[in-house]
């Protein structure tokens, strides 16, 4: 066995240029695979982080059925108590109570319907990034001040600026009676999403509860986990605990199912990329090994003549494929580190682009241990498997014919 390992390794360096080129080609395939995976992961993570940290949170609690109708009276069962419990839950990092209702904003120039959120300024500041996304004005200071935060597009449509007065109209719970109140524009935000910048507004929680006659009730509690991977673990008992008594606790994977679906589509795309790359690599390996075999046809004939069994000749070819794979893997890992190192330093700037969500920050590749263990291992196995084709050919050579062809 060691004899063939030695032979395979030395044979590989008989034509250094060819081995380096073949290794480079296979290595580039591996590096492309790692980089594609890392960038895809980075893109998805960026989108998820943008979606969950901007306003959504990693999970939300509503009254069961609220998300279908947005009826004002559909408040969370024992909302304030649930919020207090959630804040003490060890898995939970942050939580923010909200009201959510349709509302009409009237300015002297125009009228705009919006999704009006009542937020607790302090809790919301911890959970979401509304304060960071203000392009002018200031974030809400207290839970009962008569100030409103508008999206940039809404402000443009209403033709209002900071300090301008506007009237907010909402329908009250149970009675449906309209309630109107005067607010001053305290800040203008830009999420980068048309839907949010043109259709959302934020007022202090206490104000909205009073306007909607909710008696302290809540429509939504958004929260985030200490370990964000927990948010995707739908088997976590916490979800059913929070859903008890007529409420509904959902992870971001269910709230923005497009993102979860996009991630699984990305995985599928990666499989396709993998198949194509490995296909190209396979042709390269077979070509390299056959060239090497044809060059050494006489030698193979001699080896077979002096007593090398057909299986041993095949073994030698597979070992040469394996040795080539090891060189290629080393090259591929180095290339992948360099390329991803550069991408991690500079990032891929798609900020402002709207896919499922609007990307705010540049995309940085996400490197994982799997990329540097599983992919090289798969490549090694794959290369050895592909090496079987020339190996079988070598095994079937009759010594006399091989020596004749080699001459």
């Amino acid at each position, binding site marked *: 066995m060691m*004899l063939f390992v*030695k*032979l395979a390794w*030395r*044979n590989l360096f*008989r034509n250094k240029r060819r081995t380096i080129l073949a290794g480079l080609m296979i290595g580039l395939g591996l590096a492309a695979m790692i980089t594609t995976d890392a960038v895809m992961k980075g893109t998805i993570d960026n989108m998820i982080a943008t979606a969950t940290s901007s306003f959504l949170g990693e999970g939300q609690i509503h009254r069961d059925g609220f998300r279908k109708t947005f009826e004002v009276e559909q408040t969370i069962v024992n909302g304030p108590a649930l919020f207090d419990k959630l804040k003490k839950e060890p898995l939970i990092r942050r939580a923010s109570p909200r009201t959510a209702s349709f509302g009409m904003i009237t300015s002297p120039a125009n009228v705009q319907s919006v999704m009006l959120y009542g937020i607790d300024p302090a809790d919301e500041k911890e959970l979401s990034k509304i304060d960071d996304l203000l392009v002018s004005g200031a974030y809400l200071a207290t839970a009962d001040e008569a100030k409103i935060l508008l999206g940039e597009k809404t402000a443009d449509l209403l033709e209002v600026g900071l300090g301008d007065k506007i009237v907010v109209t909402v329908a009250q719970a149970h009675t449906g009676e309209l309630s109107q109140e005067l607010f001053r524009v305290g800040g203008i935000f830009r999420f980068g999403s048309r839907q949010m910048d043109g259709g959302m507004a934020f007022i202090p929680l206490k104000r909205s509860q009073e306007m909607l006659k909710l008696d302290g009730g809540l429509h939504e509690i958004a929260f985030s986990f200490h370990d964000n991977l927990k948010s995707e673990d739908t088997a976590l008992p916490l979800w059913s605990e929070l859903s008890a008594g007529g409420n509904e606790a959902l992870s971001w994977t269910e709230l923005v199912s497009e993102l979860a679906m996009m991630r699984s589509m990305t995985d599928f795309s990666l499989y396709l990329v993998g198949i194509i790359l490995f296909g190209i690599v396979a042709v390269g390996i077979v070509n390299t090994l056959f060239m090497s075999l044809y060059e050494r046809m*006489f*030698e193979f004939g*001699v*080896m*077979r*003549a*002096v*007593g*090398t*069994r*057909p*299986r*041993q000749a095949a073994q030698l070819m597979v070992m040469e494929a394996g040795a080539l794979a090891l060189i290629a893997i080393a090259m591929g890992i180095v290339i992948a580190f360099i390329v991803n190192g550069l991408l991690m330093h500079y990032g891929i700037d798609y900020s402002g682009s709207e896919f499922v969500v609007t990307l705010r920050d540049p995309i940085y590749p996400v490197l994982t241990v799997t990329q540097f263990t599983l992919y090289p291992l798969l490549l090694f196995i794959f290369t050895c498997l592909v090496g079987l084709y020339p190996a079988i050919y070598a095994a079937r050579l*009759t*010594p*006399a014919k091989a*020596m004749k062809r080699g*001459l």
Partner: protein
Amino acid sequence: MEHVIRIDRVSKIYRTGEVTVEALKEVSLTIAKGEFSAIAGPSGSGKSTLLNIVSGLDKPDGGTVELGGKAMTAMSASDLSDFRRDHIGFIFQSYNLIPVLTVEENIEYVMLLQGVPKAERRERVAKILTEVGLDGMQTRLPIHLSGGQQQRVAVARAIVSRPDIILADEPTANLDSKTADALLDMMQELNRTHGVTFLFSTHDQMIMDHARRLITLRDGRIFSDEVRG
């Protein structure tokens, strides 16, 4: 006398498209243990074909081949490999060394396939290197040896595994006459001291002169079979 090779009415036909060439026509031959024989004849007479069939590198279309009392014609490719490994030593015209292995590793190659223990391998290699006059060259690669030295390594490799017979196909073809003469002397000496059977395929007069039995092939048949002293 004990026979190493027994060939009985062996024939071989090559077909290339519609052209059929009868390379061997019912050739029968026996080679006894310890012989130093040569098969001679002009190009196309069937020398190499006969040697290939005797060694199991090629299969005959008719007749039987026995080596050491075993019928080779019925063996599988794998069994034939084992048989060649254990019973036949080869020396080829173009030295047939494995370029990536050192002199010592080349000589060891067949013994490694045979599973000879390391200590015994090293001992046999050291001994044979002295016998073929290559002491101190064990770590050299074939590329750093002259043609004559490479052929000596090939002889060492052929003999070190203790085969029943050594088949040598034009072993002096790429050597100058002085080197060829020295090589033949060495092989003759090995034949005398170790009792190894040699069968050459050649049209080199020097080998024919050294051979104690000269079998001449012509048009696929044995034309003459001359035993000298």
